[in-house]
């Protein structure tokens, strides 16, 4: 199969501790960037400058950043609602994201889609549909292609606890298990699906399903970015070794409402307080401070970058109304997603 990518995979394995100091700093930086971008988006939303509705992943940064950081350039990612950090790790810029929120022509979605519905194909990222669990199926399909072509690549799909109830989730996981596809399934156990508590989504911890599908299951503290990195890295090794999918259950907490319109009064205040104390940024910041890293400088740089991006995004033009009906169909041979040429991932570049 001559047209297929041959670069970018399998290498990137290091001996010894995988995460060296620059990696650990990067992990923090991406989390800080996610939080700053999302906070800025939220304030723009509250100012009435962001159309539609608004969602963020506050409190869940460690899961999406840590997991995505463990991927290789040629791997593909399907982020979900809470995973802006995944886009950032892959290289999508704060400017492109903020312009996306604002519905500007220069945003990732070119004004066609908004809020968390984004993904840059050139970075191996598939923008989510709204229909929860759709992307788990698509990720399985990508993994199938990798397996069929014998490529050392995997695909990773994020999803919430609520998404596990959708039939598509089951069809994808069952198929991936049968075919032992190189697929990493990251379940974000954040306690709620909109207003519905997890206990109303599954009667048993969903990790039990790993056993029922005959795949590897791995619980992890979803607020510890290094722990998430490590289980994902191992899942990736299994995937590439032909051992099939891994279901990673990352325990975390949705610290905001489902969206900006949702005051989440159905979430007990004590629960939030408990999780506030487990803030993933604070945890990683603590580690870095102990190692003598100037975290305040990172924070300042992040704040500056995001402020500048917001300025630039607001200055961008709206999409041209005449473009609204263009591009429903592709006109030419498509460029496959994620050819692996660019070293966008912080770790396995």
């Amino acid at each position: 199969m001559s047209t297929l990518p041959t670069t970018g995979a399998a290498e990137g394995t290091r001996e010894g501790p995988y995460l060296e100091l620059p990696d650990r700093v990067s992990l923090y930086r991406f989390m800080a960037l996610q939080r700053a971008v999302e906070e800025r988006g939220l304030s723009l939303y509250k100012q009435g400058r962001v159309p539609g509705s608004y969602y963020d992943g506050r409190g869940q940064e460690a899961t999406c950043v840590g997991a995505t950081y463990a991927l290789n350039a040629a791997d593909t990612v399907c982020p979900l609602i809470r995973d802006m950090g995944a886009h950032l790790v892959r290289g999508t810029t704060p400017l492109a994201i903020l312009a996306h929120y604002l519905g500007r022509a220069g945003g990732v979605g070119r004004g066609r889609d908004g809020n968390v519905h984004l993904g840059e194909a050139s970075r191996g990222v598939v923008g989510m549909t709204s229909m929860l669990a759709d992307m788990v199926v698509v990720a399985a399909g990508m993994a199938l292609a990798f397996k069929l072509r014998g490529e050392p690549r995997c695909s990773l799909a994020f999803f919430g606890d609520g998404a596990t109830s959708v039939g598509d989730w089951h069809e994808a996981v069952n198929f991936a298990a049968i075919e032992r596809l190189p697929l990493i399934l990251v379940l974000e156990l954040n306690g709620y699906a909109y207003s519905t508590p997890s206990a109303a989504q599954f009667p048993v911890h969903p990790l039990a399903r790993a056993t029922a599908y005959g795949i590897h299951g791995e619980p992890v503290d979803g607020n510890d970015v290094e722990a998430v990195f490590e289980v994902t890295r191992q899942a990736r090794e299994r995937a590439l070794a032909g051992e099939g999918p891994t279901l990673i259950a990352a325990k975390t907490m949705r610290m905001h409402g489902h969206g900006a319109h949702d005051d989440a009064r159905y979430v007990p205040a004590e629960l939030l307080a408990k999780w506030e104390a487990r803030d993933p940024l604070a945890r990683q910041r603590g580690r870095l401070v102990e190692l003598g890293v100037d975290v305040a400088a990172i924070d300042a740089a992040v704040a500056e970058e995001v402020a500048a991006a917001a300025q630039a995004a607001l200055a961008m033009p709206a999409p041209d109304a005449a473009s609204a009906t263009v591009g429903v169909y592709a006109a030419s041979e498509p460029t496959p997603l994620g050819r692996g040429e660019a070293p966008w991932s912080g770790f396995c570049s």
Partner: protein
Amino acid sequence: MQLTYLEAISDGLRCALREDDRVFLLGEDIGVMGGAFKVTAGLLDEFGPERVIDTPISEEMIVGGAVGAAIVGMRPICEMQFADFVACGFDQIVNVAGKLHYRLELAAPIVIRLPCGGGVSGGPYHSANPEAWFLHAPGLKVVAPSTAEDAKGLLLAALADPNPVIFMEHKGLYRRVRGEVPEGPYETPFEARTVRDGDDLVVITYGAMVHAAAAAIEQLDGASVRLLDLRSLEPLDEEAILAAARECSKVVIVDEANYTCAIGAQVSALIAERAFEDLDGPIIRVATPDVPIPFAPELERAVLPSVERIRAAITELLAY
């Protein structure tokens, strides 16, 4: 009482839950949350978790579960959180609910509420007007109120109907439209309504486009333009449509749905077959082109039928 379109639907639900203990609600986040749009707000408190059931995110289960409950004597009302998600419960609607009576002489009196429509920067996944899919599938009824009074009346009529009824409630009208709504239960017939009379031309539409068309007609001077609000798409009030076409001789049809194979196409074809001799000009359609609904207001406005586009179509046809 004066209610918004949204309040009218809530009131209809409350009425139904009070009047008939076979009625219960099934949907995602309809309990504590009161639904994504607060249509069911307060109902959990009044009726309890056995009549306002929060389900897992399982649209096939919501619809098929409702069918199961209905065939043993209940009257479930399902909510899709957005009309768009109905694609996830599609099989149970078209293959189970729609074909049940023809095949098995079993009836499935369920109502499926679809918060639909664009104009709120919902983007490709929160702006759908999917009614044509269900019009093409046999055995389903489909209604689409444009006013607060009809919203409640059609909901209660849908519930009284022994068949599965898809209830298209337009998100854009929820808080924008308000009107006098009778207290207590009443049923609006599944028939078209003449919103305003006229005999030079008739605009045929339904849902949110009734308001856009009314605004377009307001802006014309002099012409006598009739406005027909279909209200029910299945059954389709063919008599009212044909009478209007014959009396006005010129027809503009407006769909907020995507153009191809929308109900507007069906209405046009009906007129072209059965009222051809009375036509004094082409049958003009105004619809959303075949494109996913874009998010940015500039783009969304460019695809949804606007007051201007409707007015232009009317003006051009009047001049024909």
